[in-house]
């Protein structure tokens, strides 16, 4: 019986938490924080238990018929736990950070309600057992993130929200069309370890290619592949914890994770390769990698620069997926985790600078190092991780992607990786330089003393911890329970017939 209740319990924790928080009146801060943190830790424990179970090979899942012919299926398999683990872990930090960040601002009940609703849908996406359930949570994620994007209520935020909705709902409609067509053609939407479209007769190949294009386009909106990435930089107007969770973990990863599911568990990597759809996907991803980094170069606003960096980094995952072969998969999947950890740190630090010093632009960062040493150190570590300097997490991904590209004899990917690392260096090093090596010019735009340390305790420790995590994940890459080992396990299960 334990097989069924664990996934449900994981979802229920944040659903319940969001209901309680919605019901809480605005002034009950302490209760709301305890509910938040309790739910986050409980969820982390549940996900850890499930991960351990899945590692042992136990089955967790539940399925019931929701619509005639279509079932609502939750299933915890290896790749699901990869994404669920990431979301649960980073949600704990982001909640702590958000509590500190939103001290004294209005609408916190509404914020934390939708915040936990958003993570519930992210976990739903991770645990979905078939494309129908995936779509269900995919759309719920869109709805629960809109109020977070427009949380500040300023005209700018509302405009960003509008653009966000146009992109994501448009993508959702295209994805729905793809799912319905696939169901019409194949009649079966379940995720199976090595995909199940191998057997379909060749007459349907053009249709299947068309459907693949629709599915990837729908998912590409959230994965911010180039033509569809417009919403991400403008959504940076949201508060820092929202950009941290959404644009480093939940929303963008949902898109990339969707593509992983479609390529591996619906089409199957060999069938997708034989269809010839991986090559164009690799081109789009490669173009996004370069375009994202190029655009990031000229952004003067810190968070917009990080946003474009996210656009480029997510395309790494898609690039890894489209490299036919276990190495490429491992590269893509492990970057799913590494990018999350590194990007969350960067957004936390950006939030700290904005909240404590009132600094939003890159050229206002001069001399921030000595003023906020721990935050700047965390930023530097994460920045070097993004550039791909060993022994940090980013290097492991680039190494795996490089090896995967060579194994899949798509050697043209290596110059793309190198050019992107160069561009990463070009837009991160100047920031590190300004932080540490430039003296302070005049005083800070809006300096606020937030507690004994350089800033509020809840704002300071999350980024420091995630920075330490970046180093640990990189240094202990080959250790048994590291993300890389888990990605190997996933790739192993995917490529075994």
């Amino acid at each position, binding site marked *: 019986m334990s097989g069924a209740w664990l996934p449900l319990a994981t979802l229920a924790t944040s659903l319940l938490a969001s209901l309680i928080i919605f019901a809480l009146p605005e002034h009950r801060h302490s209760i709301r924080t305890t509910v938040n943190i309790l739910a986050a830790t409980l969820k982390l424990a549940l996900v850890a238990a499930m991960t351990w179970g899945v590692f042992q090979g136990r089955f967790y899942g539940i399925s019931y018929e929701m619509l005639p012919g279509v079932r609502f299926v939750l299933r915890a398999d290896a790749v699901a736990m990869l994404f669920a683990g990431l979301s649960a872990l980073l949600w704990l930090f982001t909640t702590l950070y958000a509590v500190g960040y939103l001290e004294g601002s209005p609408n916190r009940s509404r914020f934390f309600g939708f915040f936990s609703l958003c993570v519930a849908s992210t976990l739903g996406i991770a645990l979905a057992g078939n494309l129908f359930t995936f779509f269900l949570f995919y759309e719920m994620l869109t709805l629960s993130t809109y109020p977070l994007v427009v949380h500040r209520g300023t005209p700018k935020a509302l405009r960003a929200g509008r653009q966000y909705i146009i992109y994501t709902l448009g993508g959702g409609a295209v994805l729905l069309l793809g799912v319905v067509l696939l169901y*019409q053609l194949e009649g079966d939407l379940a995720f199976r370890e090595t995909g199940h479209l191998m057997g379909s007769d060749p007459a349907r190949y053009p249709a299947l290619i068309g459907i693949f294009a629709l599915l990837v386009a729908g998912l590409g909106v959230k994965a911010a592949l180039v033509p569809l990435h417009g919403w991400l930089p403008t959504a940076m107007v949201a508060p820092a914890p929202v950009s941290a969770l959404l644009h480093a973990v939940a929303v963008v990863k949902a898109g990339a994770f969707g593509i992983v599911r479609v390529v591996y568990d619906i089409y199957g990597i060999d069938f997708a390769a034989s269809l010839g759809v991986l090559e164009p996907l690799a081109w789009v991803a490669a173009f996004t990698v370069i375009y994202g980094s190029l655009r990031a170069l000229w952004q003067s606003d810190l968070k917009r620069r990080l946003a474009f960096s996210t656009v480029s980094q997510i395309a790494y995952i898609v690039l890894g997926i489209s490299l036919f072969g276990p190495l490429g998969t491992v590269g893509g999947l492990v970057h799913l985790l590494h990018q999350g950890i590194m990007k969350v740190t960067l957004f936390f630090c950006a939030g700290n600078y904005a909240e404590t010093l009132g600094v939003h632009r890159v050229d206002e960062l001069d001399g921030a190092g000595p003023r906020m040493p721990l935050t700047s150190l965390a930023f530097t570590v994460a920045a070097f991780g993004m550039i791909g300097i060993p022994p940090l997490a980013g290097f492991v991904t680039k190494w795996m992607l490089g090896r995967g590209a060579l194994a899949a004899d798509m050697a043209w990917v290596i110059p793309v990786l190198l050019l992107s690392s160069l561009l990463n260096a070009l837009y991160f090093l100047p920031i590190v330089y300004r932080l540490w090596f430039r003296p302070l010019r005049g005083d800070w735009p809006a300096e606020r003393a937030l507690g004994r340390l350089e800033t509020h305790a809840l704002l300071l420790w999350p980024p420091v911890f995630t920075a330490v995590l970046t180093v640990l994940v990189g240094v202990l890459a080959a250790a048994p329970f590291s993300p890389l080992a888990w990605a190997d396990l996933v790739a192993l299960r995917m490529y075994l017939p």
Partner: protein
Amino acid sequence: MSSLLMAGLLFTPLAWAVLCLLLAFRAARLASVIGMLLQMALSLALWAWVAEQGGFFYHLGGWAPPLGIGLRVDGLAVTFVLLTALVGAACGLHAGLYLDPSRPWQRYFWPLFWMLWAGLNAVWLAGDLFNLYVGLELITLAAVGLVVLGGAAPALEAALRYLFAALIGSLAYLLGVALLYAEFGSLSLVGVGEGAGSASPAASFALLIMLFGLAVKAALFPGHTWLPPAHGIARAPVSALLSGLVVKAAFYVAARVWLELGPALEAAVVGVLLGVAGSAAVCWGSWQALRQPQLKLVVAWSSVAQIGYLFLLFPLSHGVPEAVSLQAQQGVTLQVISHALAKSAMFLAAGNLILSVRSKRVEALAGVSRYLPLSLFSFGLAGVSLMGMPPSGGFAAKWLLLQASLASGQWWWAAVLLVGGLLAAAYVFRIYRASFQEVEESDPFYHPPRSLEIIPLVLALLALGLGLVAEPVLSVLGLPFGGEVLSP
């Protein structure tokens, strides 16, 4: 046992109507609450009875159909009865708290309310065409009365416009009934269905007129002009009842007739025509909803758009394999149920918002999300179902309709569904945008009693939850009439 249920469903509302006529507002309200509970119990009992026994015919008073009133109960009818009980009870309770007894004419709300309920039950359970006509008329007169209740000149004007449109519609329907009776010599739907095989062109002409009349009463695109002012100006609970149930009654009759007669008479052209009109309704309704400055008019125009979806049933159930037609029927029924729940929730929530914001305009909603989270939340949840986003009932309906349209090869309806969903999102998010605007000064709004906000929330949650329990609902819905005849 079943006779008790049937009598209860048809006659108690009429009895309550007369009773409320004699009482003052507050006493009538108390009586109505009891009545509503009774109705709810009866509907649930009938639903449970049909769920395990299956559908049956029922002759009122024991007289056979040609003379006596033959009622017909099947899965579809009983589900709609339960739906009426749910939405009716909610709107009644809300009206009890929302309407201000001191204003003139308000005490006549309850009699008209019960009349409407009786008419609705009569239409759902009617077995023959003429009963449907009587039921429709009863609904129309009660509805017009409710629209104009205590209203000023604009309400009167809207009511007159509504009355004339509805009367023309029902007379056209009656003309159709007359021609069909002349053709087949029987009024009962089943009888007409069997005789349809050897039909002459006159029968298809009759069908055309009937459908035209019903389309006008259901405010399908060309004949929709009366709906927005009527639903926009009426009191919130009234417009909830109108948009949620009254409009559906005309569509229910049209669907029944079409499913019985349509396949036999080669009326494919009519089906496509209605489908095109439906699509036009979706686009025009949503476009207008985007441009309305007043909140209730936005919701009214949204009804015009959502009704367009229902009429997609006609092209999708004609000249297609049986399985596809069944899928289309299930889809449309889910759409009807989820729209009824969601739209009534939206109208009630809009009423609450207007009550507390003290202005009908959308822009006045700024800062609502901060001070009135509950009513905005129920409005939002209803919006989710209207947009057809998972896990709502609207999504389940959209999924089934998409399946049906793709399976039947008429892929263009799928395009309409997807575009419609996006347009619905456009006008729903327009309201969110307005409400998320931040307001500096302190709380400027009037806070209505908590219970007033709970009712739309319950309805919205039902619409949302419908998606998750779509399968059981559809299984009951599929129950056919069954052969045996039950008499008292």
